[in-house]
């Protein structure tokens, strides 16, 4: 008992300190630890979310780069194919145009030849006719004095027949 008195142990003071500390624990728990824990958890969640987002963004970026490479490669191969096709097409068109031009020129030449031949024939005919007329006129002029009218006519007819034969041959 003496030692208790010496250390100043007193029931009311002890109870005061007991209740006081319990109140402090309540205040700390309710107004400090709880909101701070909530905030720390929220921060932790946000950090985890941000890290996850960053990871996702990294994956998406990687995929996009892969996709870009793929698209570029596809476009390149497509362009190469188109170039080859175009080249072939140009060659074919060129060849076709050349063939067409050749055939057209041949046709024109043929046509010109045929026309020239016809013209030549017509000219021949015309010249033949003219020579017959001239021969007839020359003959009539030459023979008018040597033969009678009947003889003249017979000679002319015979001559004309001969000329006609020659022309037709």
């Amino acid at each position, binding site marked *: 008992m003496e030692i208790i008195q010496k250390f100043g142990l007193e029931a009311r003071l002890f109870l005061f*300190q007991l209740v006081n500390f319990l109140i*402090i624990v309540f*205040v*700390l728990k309710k*107004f400090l630890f709880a909101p*701070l824990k909530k905030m720390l958890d929220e921060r932790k969640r946000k950090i985890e979310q941000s890290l996850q987002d960053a990871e996702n963004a990294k994956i998406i970026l990687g995929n996009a780069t892969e996709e870009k490479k793929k698209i570029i490669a596809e476009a390149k191969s497509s362009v190469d194919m188109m170039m080859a096709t175009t080249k072939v097409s140009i060659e074919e068109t060129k060849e076709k145009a050349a063939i067409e031009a050749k055939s057209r020129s041949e046709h024109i030449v043929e046509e010109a030849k045929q026309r020239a031949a016809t013209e030549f024939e017509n000219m021949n005919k015309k010249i033949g006719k003219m020579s017959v007329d001239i021969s007839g006129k020359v003959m009539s002029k030459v023979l008018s004095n040597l033969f009678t009218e009947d003889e003249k006519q017979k000679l002319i007819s015979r001559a004309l027949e001969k000329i006609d034969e020659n022309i037709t041959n």
Partner: protein
Amino acid sequence: MQISPEILFSIAGFPVTNTVIATVITDIVIIVLVFMVSKTVALKPGGTQNAVEAVIDYFRETTEEIAGERASFIYPWVLSFFLFILISNLVAQFPGFESIRFQTAALEHHGVPFLRAATSDLNFTLALAVISVVVTHYFSIKHTGIKAYFRRFITFRMFPIFLFVGILEFVNEITKLISFSFRLFGNIFAGERVMSTMYGLFSFGLPLPFIVLEIMVALIQAIVFAMLTMAFMHIMTDKSH
């Protein structure tokens, strides 16, 4: 040398001692701190919030390392003990403690100190010790069950070895109260006496190294009390122990 706190006056029969006033000052400091932090609590922490968060995070992580899932109910108590003891001890380092005297007609010529460290009062330290032990036992019953709790103290397995161990456990619980309360009380009370002597010898410069020492003691004692509470709570709530 007086070990017990000095009674300054009484309010409705309640003796107001200098340690009671120091306790009230500690309460005010804690409440102001709590409302300062809770008002400005934000995802982007400021200066005060940063400091409080660092302390809370340290204790939470340490408790989680030791007690695992049970940390959620252990660490608020551990942290409360730490903050309350630390602030009580640090407040006592401010000028005015011991030096401001309180004089009444009944008191001796120089009066008594108006303020004295709350932790240098055995009522204070014993109250904390009792709360620590009672809460530990409450958690023990809650988490291990009433049967397991009593088996810790009374068992007839391997008679009489475990019965004797049980008695030792019981004695251990009483010594916990004594060690908790007297360790804290003794350290702070002795520190106060040393400081008082130093101020008495030479007030300028000489007490400075002792103030640094007392700040260290304040921190160490708060950590010791909190860590021991954490360890006992972990042991008593663990089914394998």
